[in-house]
């Protein structure tokens, strides 16, 4: 048997086939395997370590941006330029003019950027004090429902200042009213009381013989100085007696008791109610101004309900009143008045 035949018979199946044996391939395969394994180990071991060490310099922003979108920080609440923050509402004096010997300053309210305007109650101020050479408190604060966010302050007997050294000191009010039709409004704290008294006699025209004094608590007395009325109209003057800085919003109503004429379809009893509560009508297309808080004032009354006739007469005359009041709270807020807002007398 030849040696080549013997080798052929005893060759293991695992031995390389002599016909396909290649020295180059024999040397490349181990190196290729070593390269793949080396890259893999290097990437997963050293690379992974590098990843964890480098992210420590990048804080959580890098890792959280991959998993969850990073929560953006709340932007700084901002107010329009030149507005002063008053409990989340910006205030700014935008115009001032004189008329009939009085000074009027128009103040605008604008919601801070973190407050949706339609959900934010207006800033309710109790005191508006004009500073400068002296200090004068606004006699009236005029509000209209058709100009939300705007307030016109009336300073009686003052002229338009010639220099822009004046400013305003604003005190927030304790009183906040939940108005009808304002469901879900946040304002709830209301100081109020109501009552009634039966007037002497049934005569009309009717006049109070002397001022009617009503204790309304907290050391305050409402003085109804005069009350004059007929079957169609009424007129009331009043003022507040107290030692505090409270201001009142009052409503008077004269009820003609027992005036339900059964012969008429409209069986509402006769009342004299404040004109400003009557709302719009074909004759008065615009709503009234809001009744201001004050330390005194007047009120016009007008009839609603049944006509008073010979067969429809009252059995009693009742005066009803309701009072809301407010006090200044907190520190005064300084509100500058820019020189450019002054425009001098308009009359």
């Amino acid at each position, binding site marked *: 048997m030849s040696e080549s035949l013997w080798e052929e018979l005893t060759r293991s199946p695992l031995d390389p086939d002599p016909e396909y044996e290649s020295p180059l391939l024999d040397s490349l395969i181990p190196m290729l395997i070593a390269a793949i394994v080396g890259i893999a180990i290097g990437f997963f071991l050293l690379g992974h370590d590098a990843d964890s060490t*480098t992210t420590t310099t990048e804080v959580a922003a890098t890792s959280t941006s991959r998993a969850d979108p990073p929560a953006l920080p709340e932007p700084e609440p901002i107010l329009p330029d030149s507005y002063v923050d008053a409990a989340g509402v910006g205030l700014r004096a935008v115009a001032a003019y004189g008329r009939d010997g009085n000074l009027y300053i128009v103040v605008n309210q604008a919601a801070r950027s973190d407050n949706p305007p339609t959900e934010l109650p*207006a800033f309710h101020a109790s005191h508006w004090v004009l500073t400068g050479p002296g200090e004068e408190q606004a006699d009236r604060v005029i509000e209209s429902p*058709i100009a939300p966010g705007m307030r016109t302050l009336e300073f009686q007997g003052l002229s338009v200042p010639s220099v822009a050294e004046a400013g305003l000191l604003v005190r927030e009010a304790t009183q906040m009213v939940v108005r009808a039709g304002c469901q879900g409004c946040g304002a709830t704290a209301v100081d109020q009381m109501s009552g009634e008294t039966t007037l002497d006699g049934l005569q009309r025209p009717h006049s109070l013989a002397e001022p009617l004094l009503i204790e309304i608590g907290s050391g305050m007395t409402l003085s109804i100085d005069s009350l004059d009325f007929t079957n169609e*109209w009424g007129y009331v003057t009043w003022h507040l007696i107290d030692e505090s800085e409270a201001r009142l919003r009052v409503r008077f109503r004269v009820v003609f008791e027992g005036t339900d004429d059964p012969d008429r379809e409209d069986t509402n009893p006769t009342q004299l109610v404040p004109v400003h509560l009557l709302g719009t009508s074909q004759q008065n297309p615009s709503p009234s101004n809001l009744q201001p808080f004050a330390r005194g004032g007047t009120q016009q009354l007008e009839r609603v309900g049944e006509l008073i006739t010979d067969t429809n007469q009252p059995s009693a005359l009742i005066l009803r009143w309701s009072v809301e009041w407010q006090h200044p709270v907190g520190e005064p807020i300084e509100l500058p008045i820019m020189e450019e807002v002054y425009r001098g007398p308009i009359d």
Partner: protein
Amino acid sequence: MLGRVAASFIVFVIALVSGAALSGGATTSEPIEPRTANTAATTSAAPRAVFVSPSETLLGPAVVIAGEPYMSGSQLVIEFDLVSLAPTGDAPTIERQLGFGSTRQLLPEDLDTLFLESWSLGIGNERISGATANPAARAARFEVGDGFDPTEIDQIAIESFAVLAPFSADIQLGVGNESQIVAPGLTARLLAITQQAKTIIQIEVVSDRDFNLDNLRVSGIGPGWLSAVREAEGRPRWNLTHESSTAPDPILVRVEGASWIAIDQSIPIDPGGER
């Protein structure tokens, strides 16, 4: 055989270093910038006229968002929106009488409280004036002529605007004192006194702007006054009835509502906002 093992080892070491370099390089060569940095920088600085975004301009009680100008015939038109900033969370809904018994409910935030009265276009040294028709309009119009190219505009500005301010004026009228100013741009005039069983006093309010007259009420002050009635067809005349056969002297009248107060201030506008 030994040579093959040595060569493979060298390749392994080189590959190990390369793999580590690839892995480490991906995380360290370009650190990811936290996204919050720019946001904080832009929101912490309070802008002067811009309130929320560069295309918004604050004027008094509202934000102006102006669109891109475009041509309509011989006019250049800039449409805009006004977003009220007035806090209206506790403000009442307004009922408007439209005449003939019809009414309209208005939300307080939908009321017109800012009037962009006059505008200007800047083209080099040239200025072209424009105007908005009334407070309810939401477009400013400029007569520029056919063939005008809006891209030539260098600057757009509001030159004057007006804010709606409440007022309440208690005035005295009578013979020799027939008229009084009640608010900027508004004058009340005594037109006629008709003395009969009850006295009818006719008062007219004149305005420098027609739309000022929509927001008024007139009533008498003191004892004896019955209903005040505004004349039909929207004329700004009120008939006040006093129960006596002679007119009170003096005649005390309250005129109240809101009037437009003009503010002259040039405000550049950045058009192109989302409206």
